[in-house]
């Protein structure tokens, strides 16, 4: 009886008592959800165009951020460092396509997944080899002050992150819908063989997609790195993005955003109001439980493509 009360009554009573706090938590959740979406975007791009679940996305985020910070620490201005980091990610995409995607073309999804795991190990070691294992504080001038708007605490940094993510999504949407390259990407995502038969060069498309994913990873790495400092743990943000992908669907860019927002808000609300009943720190599994609930009703995620099986 007590358990039922703590699960179903007390949290709502608490919420009713503190509407301002609820608003704060919701806004905080939305903003942290945006940060998750930034990481999830990279996954979605690669999955959409190559059908690969890129286990190495977290490591790519870290690698990109390390290159960026490394360039800044050697005296380059921010824009210079950004360009260098983008160039490095493009080179990486070329190498990945040549050494991993091309030999493994047409293999099953799970084999390609395993290949990205090998890539993750490789980049882990390589990144630490080149840039060392220290923490690199990253400050590119994003304001961090807490703002109080109408009694509700909001952090400037999170707002900037939301704007960045939003613009990135808009840019990607424009790319996909209104450019020739975008059309080619969508064709490849739909059906590799058909796309090839129309003359779309699969290899170049893959290089382009992995480069874009690398740049998206760089942006995510800069935002997260400003928060945590650029260090090894940055690659763990990928785990946070998984429930977002499931909720939103693996193949949808707007799904990554919406999924991120839902996971962010859900996680924070659960942690703050239901957490104390369970002893706290329920964020981890709650996101997955939430995704699971969604999956039971929509097995392909909110915006994912319907899985049609032919027997």
């Amino acid at each position, binding site marked *: 009886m007590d358990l039922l009360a703590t699960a179903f009554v007390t949290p709502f009573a608490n919420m009713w008592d503190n509407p301002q706090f609820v608003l704060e938590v919701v806004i905080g959740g939305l903003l942290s959800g945006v940060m998750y979406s930034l990481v999830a975007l990279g996954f979605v791009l690669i999955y959409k165009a190559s059908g690969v679940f890129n286990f190495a996305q977290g490591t790519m985020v870290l690698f990109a951020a390390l290159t960026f910070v490394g360039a800044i620490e050697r005296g380059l201005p921010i824009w210079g460092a950004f360009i260098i980091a983008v160039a490095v990610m493009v080179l990486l995409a070329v190498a990945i396509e040549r050494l991993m995607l091309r030999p493994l073309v047409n293999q099953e999804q799970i084999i390609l997944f395993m290949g990205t795991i090998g890539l993750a190990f490789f980049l882990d070691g390589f990144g630490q080899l080149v840039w060392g294992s220290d923490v690199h504080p*990253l400050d590119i001038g994003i304001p*961090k002050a807490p703002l109080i708007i109408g009694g509700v605490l909001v952090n400037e*940094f999170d707002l900037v992150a939301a704007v960045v993510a939003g613009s990135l999504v808009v840019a990607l949407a424009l790319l996909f819908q209104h450019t020739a390259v975008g059309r080619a990407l969508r064709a490849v995502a739909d059906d590799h063989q058909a796309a090839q038969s129309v003359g779309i060069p699969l290899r170049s498309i893959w290089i382009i997609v992995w480069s874009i994913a690398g740049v998206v990873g760089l942006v995510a790495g800069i935002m997260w790195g400003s*928060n945590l400092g650029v260090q090894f743990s940055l690659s763990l943000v990928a785990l*946070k993005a998984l429930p977002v992908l499931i909720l939103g669907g693996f193949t949808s860019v707007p799904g990554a955003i919406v999924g991120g927002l839902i996971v962010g808000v859900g996680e924070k609300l659960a942690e703050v109001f239901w957490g104390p009943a369970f002893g706290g720190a329920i964020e*981890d599994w709650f996101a997955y439980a939430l995704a699971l609930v969604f999956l039971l009703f929509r097995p392909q995620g909110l915006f994912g493509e319907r899985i049609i099986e032919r027997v």
Partner: protein
Amino acid sequence: MRLFRTFLAGAAVAIAVFGLGADTAFAQNEQFIPRLVYRSGPYAPNGIPFADGYVDYLDMINSRDGGVGGVRIAYEECETGYNNDKGVECYERLKNKGPTGASLVDPLSTGITYALIERATADKIPVVSMGYGRADASYGAVFPYVFTLPATYWAQADALIKYIGQQEGGLDKLKGKKIGLVYIDIAYGKEPISTLEKLSQKLGYTFLKYPVSAPGIEQSATWLQVRQQRPDWLFMWGWGVMNSTAIKGAASIGYPMDHFVGVWWSGSEPDVAPAGEAAAGYKSGAFHGPGQDYGVIKDILKYVYDKNSGHTTRDKVGEVLYNRGVINAIYDLEAIRAAQGKFGKKPLKGEEVQWGYEHLDITPQRVTELGADGLMVPTQLSCANHEGNGEVRIQQWDGKHWKFVSDWIKPDREMLTEMYKESALAYAKEKGITPRECEKVM
């Protein structure tokens, strides 16, 4: 197919080369110390300065004094990555090296300590878990081969309460106040909870717990709760990235930094660096001093760095974790010295070093001789007391350096000894161990 055949050929060559290779040989008259370190992985920023400080001290002693009692110290590092399995593997591989085997082992991780306690006790190699590991191992009657000097987490928790009691004008003023603990939700983070709860009943403050799921890269929910509940004082038991994220979190909600005190593993340069200026004012506990202003540190600079053989850069000598590595080495070598007093100036076995540790007596004069005034406090161990009488001091980050802002605080040894004994005896019962009778041990 051709690719595969090339691979087989390469593998055959590799096996031939490595199969014929010999293991590193150690001279007969050297004392071997295995070094379990983590120089890569998520905790590397904290592990690297610690490892560097330790081996720099060993190099300095070898260079300046020719070793301990004329016996040079040999060491070999093994990378654990803060991973329990690798820690066990490193231990097993290194425990028989050198003329007398490993003299002791510093696991540098609470998880690895737990994994090694049984094995090392069976192998008769002392486990030195300096300021981490099992707090109840301080009751040496049940844990003959585990040493927790100079102070445990429970002692630190008690000392922290005493410190804020001092700040508030007396322990009685804590009644009715709210004291929170932000902790990483693993074994290490949960250690102080029992002590803090006990003290909350005794002193009348409200104890609020804020668990953070490992690894703690996302803590906004926690800090919103802190903002809502406004504890008067906040402690932190974090490690790795959780520390820096928490400090940023506190700054982002405008929590007064000088009321935010972390445990000694949450108070070092890599933790405050990412937060930048916002971290100024943050405090932490410490059982040793920061900075380069000690005789022994100056000796390291002279005998190691001036000869261009240090493991890190000059400006990192004196960082909090670097100094911690140094005093870990100081304790270990002093124990070896004490054991040499009884067993002679030769390479010693783990059993003999264990005797040395149990009879460790670092007097104030010895501290001065070592050039460690202010860096460490005198300490004395015994059969039943493997923690010594370590004291805790509070240091504060001013944006550039860590500086002490309190005197040495003595934790409540009576209460703590009771707690250690109770917990250790419960462990002994579970495992079927008969506690030693310390009065009879000489």
